[in-house]
């Protein structure tokens, strides 16, 4: 299995590995995937309540190199974005950036799911009405 340089780079130097305080109202946690499927991603964001800007993001991933790279990249991309901007990140951009082969597209889908789940969790905690770009039903459907 050949990996792109970018996947290898994220695998060897994963960005933003760690854990944020789940209990904090500023933190949203997304836990997606399943151990039986061979990948589980946990992506967490800390959102500034005033500006809705994602000021910090952390991840931990159980999965193949492409899954690790996808989630590592996702944390890089959401940081500094507002919540609604972050919701526009799509898996196809991740596929493109990491040059993922077709068998690994599910890793990028999972990373997109993780972003949405983290934001969904934060919104729920803070009673933020769902924006037009991400109805609650769409998040839950993944």
């Amino acid at each position: 299995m050949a990996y792109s340089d970018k996947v290898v780079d994220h695998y060897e130097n994963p960005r933003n590995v760690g854990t944020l305080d789940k209990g904090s109202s500023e933190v949203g946690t997304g836990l997606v995937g399943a151990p039986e499927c061979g990948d589980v991603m946990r992506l967490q964001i800390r959102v500034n309540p005033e500006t809705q800007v994602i000021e910090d993001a952390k991840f931990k991933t159980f999965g193949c190199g492409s899954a690790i790279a996808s989630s590592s990249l996702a944390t890089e991309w959401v940081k500094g974005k507002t919540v609604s901007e972050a919701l526009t990140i799509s898996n196809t951009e991740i596929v493109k950036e990491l040059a993922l082969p077709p068998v690994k597209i599910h890793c990028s889908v999972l990373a997109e799911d993780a972003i949405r789940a983290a934001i969904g969790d934060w919104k729920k905690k803070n009673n933020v009405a769902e924006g037009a770009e991400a109805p609650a039903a769409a998040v839950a459907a993944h």
Partner: protein
Amino acid sequence: MSNEMSNNGVVVTEAAGTLPAGVKLPIYMDNHATTPMDPRVLEAMLPYFTGTFGNAASRNHSFGWEAEQGVDKAREQIATLINATAKEIIFTSGATESNNLAIKGIAEMYKERGNHIITQVTEHKAVLDTCKRLEKYGYRVTYLPVQADGLIDLEDLKRAMDDGTILVSIMIANNEIGVVQPVAEIGKLCHEKGVIFHTDAVQAVGKIPVDVQAMNIDVLSLTAHKIYGPKGVGALYVRRRNPRVQISAQIDGGGHERGMRSGTLNVPGIVGLGKACEIAGQEMAAETARLTELRDYMKAKFENALDYVHVNGNMQHHLPGNLNMSFVYVEGESLLMGINDIAVSSGSACTSATLEPSYVLKALGLGDDVAHSSIRFGLGRFNSKAEVDYVSDKLIDVVSKLRELSPLYEMVKEGIDLTKIEWAAH
């Protein structure tokens, strides 16, 4: 620690000076998949490519006779290793063909006697898929389960036998978990019931003692490339007395190999298989001792350095060079990526479209997550202690690093029961 750079999966090794003595990258530790040829085997084969190139079936000139002599010698060498006679050895293109010939050939030959075949769930696909095809032709096949340690329960086998049972096909040693089945007991049972006993002995022959008489084996498959011989050549042992076993040919033609397998013999390959058997027989005791020690040393290193590791398969009834371990909460493919200067196999088949982990590990009752985190180490004749040290140190390093990254490891450490979580299937 060295820092190999990975570039599109190509391993670029750094200056040799920083590696421990005796270690050259990449390291091959996947000897259940195939083995490198022993130089002594190559040497024995070489004359048969050029000067002694004759067709072993040519009866009227010296080219043919010399080729035939090479083949006859190989037949003796193979027979000696498994306590058979030379006339009971049929050459094939490898164990896939041997298994097909054995199972289909017996099913066809004995169809008047019955239509029931017994095998087990952890067989190689060359046995399982052959049986599946026979099911389509109306045969009944029982796939015995294995216990958590990989061994079949002999009581299950007894219960499965009925009046229509013509064949039992149970491997000696498993290619993934190295577990050695109680073949002598199985053979005894089969002979008591008048059922033919075939065994896929690919991983066992040349590694542990195999005696077709003592074990009551009627038909046995073997292949050269797992015992430091060439690829694409194998053999089938077919018992000629007590009882005489007959097999319907599956390849028709010039009537070679007593009509059981037509086709011009692969003389250099056969000579190589013979030589490989001879060497294996001579060196088995020493090699078993050395590989068992290395294997146990490696296992102890993992168990001392890491938590949540477990060994797959019964370790008492086990091949010397095999170690199959689960490094739980780390996914197998990511693990392989971290050790890409080392050739081993993963129980995870995440690269395939199916995402299905190994059916052998699942048959042991392992959860998919544990199966996904398994590595098969296959130690062989050319692996050194220095290599074992390098591989285990590197693996411990990568597992530790990946566990820092693993949400599952963190959750388990916090005392969370992962089975209680509602995972979103995707």
